[in-house]
């Protein structure tokens, strides 16, 4: 191994450079310099995205196979970086508040470290690397969730998050010890070659699945989700609900298909029921919510169920549609949380669904963004969500899971119902004192505009899907 090979990890390296620059800047910049912290972070993240905008075309392995990258993985990293960029752009207004201003440097460092962890997680070729990446993505996340520590909810959410994350990691590593015990190796390829589906290995699979299930918040591992999403600062919730979930779901797909592939008969039944439970239970709970952040917590659980449809059958088409689904979901959810956070900042913490009553009268543009995002999440054409839902159903149907697709389809009606409840609140419900008309800061507006363009264009322009499809393996 020479140094030129290390440069092949350019997405990790450039991200690390961004982290170090921001960290050092936070140290040297005084009270006054912090004012430029947010623009600097946005510009640096944009530079990081631009450096990695073209996915690496070659396959490579480093550190004796511990780290590896194929074009698809590189593409996923780019998608995650774009999502993080948007989330960072939206967080400016929150971070400029009196009580968070002095620690905004920590926010960027911690966020980007979790992203770095996810990069290592998706690139892992060995279970140890995988666990390190996962932990790097989880532990700073707990700090982020508890970022507004003076708020009772936030601290509570942080504690809940760290406890459930540690519990799930423990469970997963217990499962990995079974893998090591029965196969004598932790390298993905070697494990795949030696798995035969003995009871101990099935147990390992279940534990591993449960561990990642916590991350993706699939039912029945979802119990932390609503409380954490509600308690965490809204911008952190946005990050948690899309980036962290997409990375974990993609990794789960890769590991299930590439490592536990020989045991597909065991995991596809399991996944089948988990998907049905996730979609149905989350949909039914979402209907009852009155807090918009809890509402989107349940919405995101059900979306995670749809996301995992891509893993059924383990086909390349399934992988394409899953990555595409994750991209579309990310765009729409970031738009939603962008709007929620903008309103929360302006109204001093209004996050109840009834606060959105009559929003159209005062803030028509914000309402439009929210509406389009909700339509996209609900799978209404011509918005991107329709395409991603159609393709993921198509992939699962093609893999032979007709009943599953039917159940998922019936559930889209339920999900449409509750998404329309928000639309109804904004357009139809009367309100004496709606949220007053306001203008968010430039970064938020740019990010919302970008999300809107994404919602409208990603489905209609077929090139994006084709691009992802070219890399599917």
């Amino acid at each position, binding site marked *: 191994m020479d140094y030129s090979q290390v440069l092949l990890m350019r997405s990790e390296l450039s991200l690390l450079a961004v982290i170090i620059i921001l960290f050092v800047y936070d140290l040297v910049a005084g009270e006054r310099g912090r004012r430029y912290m947010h623009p600097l972070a946005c510009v640096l993240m944009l530079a990081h995205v631009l450096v990695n905008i073209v996915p690496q075309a070659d396959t490579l392995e480093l550190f004796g196979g511990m780290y590896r990258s194929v074009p698809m993985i590189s593409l996923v990293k780019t998608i995650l970086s774009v999502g993080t960029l948007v989330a960072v752009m939206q967080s400016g207004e929150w971070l400029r508040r009196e009580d968070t201003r002095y620690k905004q440097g920590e926010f960027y460092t911690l966020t980007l470290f979790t992203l770095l962890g996810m990069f290592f997680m998706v690139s892992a070729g060995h279970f140890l690397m995988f666990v390190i990446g996962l932990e790097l993505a989880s532990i700073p996340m707990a700090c982020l969730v508890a970022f507004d520590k003076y708020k009772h909810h936030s601290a509570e959410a942080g504690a809940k998050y760290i406890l459930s994350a540690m519990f799930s990691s423990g469970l997963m590593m217990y499962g990995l010890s079974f893998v090591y015990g029965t196969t004598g190796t932790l390298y993905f390829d070697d494990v795949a070659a030696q798995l035969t589906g003995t009871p101990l290995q099935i147990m390992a699979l279940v534990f591993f699945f449960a561990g990642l299930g916590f991350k993706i918040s699939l039912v029945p591992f979802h119990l932390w989700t609503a409380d954490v999403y509600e308690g965490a600062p809204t911008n952190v919730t946005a990050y948690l609900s899309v980036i962290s979930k997409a990375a974990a779901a993609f990794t789960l797909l890769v590991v299930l298909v590439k490592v536990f592939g020989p045991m597909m008969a065991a995991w596809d039944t399991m996944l089948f029921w988990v998907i049905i439970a996730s979609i149905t239970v989350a949909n039914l709970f979402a209907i009852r919510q009155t807090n918009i952040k809890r509402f989107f917590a349940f919405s995101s659980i059900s979306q995670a169920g749809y996301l995992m449809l891509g893993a059924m059958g383990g086909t390349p*088409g399934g992988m*394409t549609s899953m990555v595409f689904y994750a991209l579309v979901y990310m765009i729409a959810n970031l738009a939603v949380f962008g709007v929620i956070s903008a309103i929360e900042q302006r109204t001093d913490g209004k996050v109840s669904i009834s606060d959105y009553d009559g929003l159209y009268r005062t803030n028509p543009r914000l309402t439009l963004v929210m509406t389009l995002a909700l*339509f996209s999440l609900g799978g*209404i*054409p*011509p918005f991107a969500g*329709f395409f991603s839902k*159609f*393709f993921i*159903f*198509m992939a699962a*149907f*093609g893999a032979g899971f*007709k009943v599953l*697709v*039917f159940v998922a*389809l*019936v559930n*889209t*009606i339920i999900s*449409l*119902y509750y998404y*329309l409840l928000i*639309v*109804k609140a904004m*357009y*139809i419900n009367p309100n004496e004192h709606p949220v007053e008309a306001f203008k968010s800061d430039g970064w938020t507006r740019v990010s919302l505009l970008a999300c809107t363009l994404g919602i409208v264009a990603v489905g209609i322009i*077929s090139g994006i*899907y*084709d691009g992802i*499809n070219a890399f599917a393996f």
Partner: protein
Amino acid sequence: MNFLSLFVLVPLLMMLGLWVARNVNQVRGVMVAGASALLVLAVTLAVLYLRERAGGATAEMLFTASHVWYAPLNIHYAVGVDGISVVMLLLSAIIVFTGVFASWKMQMLTKEFFMWFCLLSVGVFGFFISVDLFTMFMFYEVALIPMYLLIGVWGSGRKEYSAMKLTLMLMGGSAFILMGILGIYYGAGATTMSLTELARIHIPVEWQRIFFPLTFIGFGVLGALFPFHTWSPDGHASAPTAVSMLHAGVLMKLGGYGCFRIAIYLMPEAAKEQAWIFLILTGIGVVYGAFSACVQKDLKYINAYSSVSHCSLVLFAILMMTQTSSTGAVLQMLSHGLMTALFFAIIGMIYGRTHTRDIREMSGLMQVMPFLSVCYVIAGLANLGLPGFSGFIAEMTIFVGSFEVNDVFHRTLTIIATTSIVITAVYILRLVGKVLYGTVGNPAHLQLTDATWDERLPLIVLIVAIAGLGLMPWGFSHIISDSVLPVISQLAR
């Protein structure tokens, strides 16, 4: 670019125009210009289509164009028209045009109303020009969602409940359709989404048996298939005038068109096996809808139930599977679309004056608004199938075609369905006598005025179309019956 795509492009441009419009007059200008352009486009298309056919073009679809959209999934943006789609496009253009004038006095959020209205028309026109399953389904769904806001924001009465009920039931239907489309695609070997190519591939009968009912029910929900019609009365009653017109006039036809074009055309074996179940359901729908209309007290509910009855008759005729009955079904779609739009337009205008739709609170309107009342009588007569109007042509063709099927079951059902004509006469004549004739019951109604020019125009256009179809049906029935032939020969295979 194929000129059929203009049907989608024009409404999109109208949306763009509305986006920049500054005041009500500019909004109206954009809408009138766009709707007229669509009408001209539809008439041009019809003329060109006739000329091509007269010139000896025998292809099933004319003016076809196909662009690869999602290559890995065999999805194309493919357009093309046959006689049925030409007629439907013409109908849609007329309804959109008249709908613009019917909502001329729209007060609240005019711009937004027309933007959603245009999106609805994008869906409708797109659906009728598409010949690719995915594109068709996409446009189908595009046409559904604007209804929620159009009814929920601009509607009347129990609008929120109706809007939600309508949207969810129709979306439930589209979930069935999506299932059916996936079944067709994979059943035919996952090689193409093109309608004409799929028709040449034989889908295994055991697949058809599962996916035919799913597809048929899915489209049937929109086509008011009993017992999935319950969204229709509430939805139509709550919707604003132009939306009721477009929804009952055109959108419900998407259901019948889909049942015919997709369910029966692509899965003929299962269609023949299972037709009896749906024939019974549609037979019930025809009679039940008519009887329900008899006992309603709200003008819009009466017309909505009448629509259920007439749209069930469309599905009924499709399921009879003869060339004559299928031609009749398409004629009925056209005729019912025009009639029901006329009805809803007049009802909207009456409601705008009297502020009630309860027939017990109105009488003698002929004295105060003679123009509107005469139009109402004409619409009613067309509805009950008086010769000289379109309803007669359509229903006659349907019943003759249905009676051609030579067995007791089909003939009994046909006879039962014909009773709906009599029942229709009952509720229409009762209504006309009660509301229009007699003395003016409410003295306040004496102050009311008759229709203004922007109200007269759409009514006249619709009446001319209804009478035109009734007096000179051969042009239409000719191109329709040529175009139903591929489906009928598919059934005979």
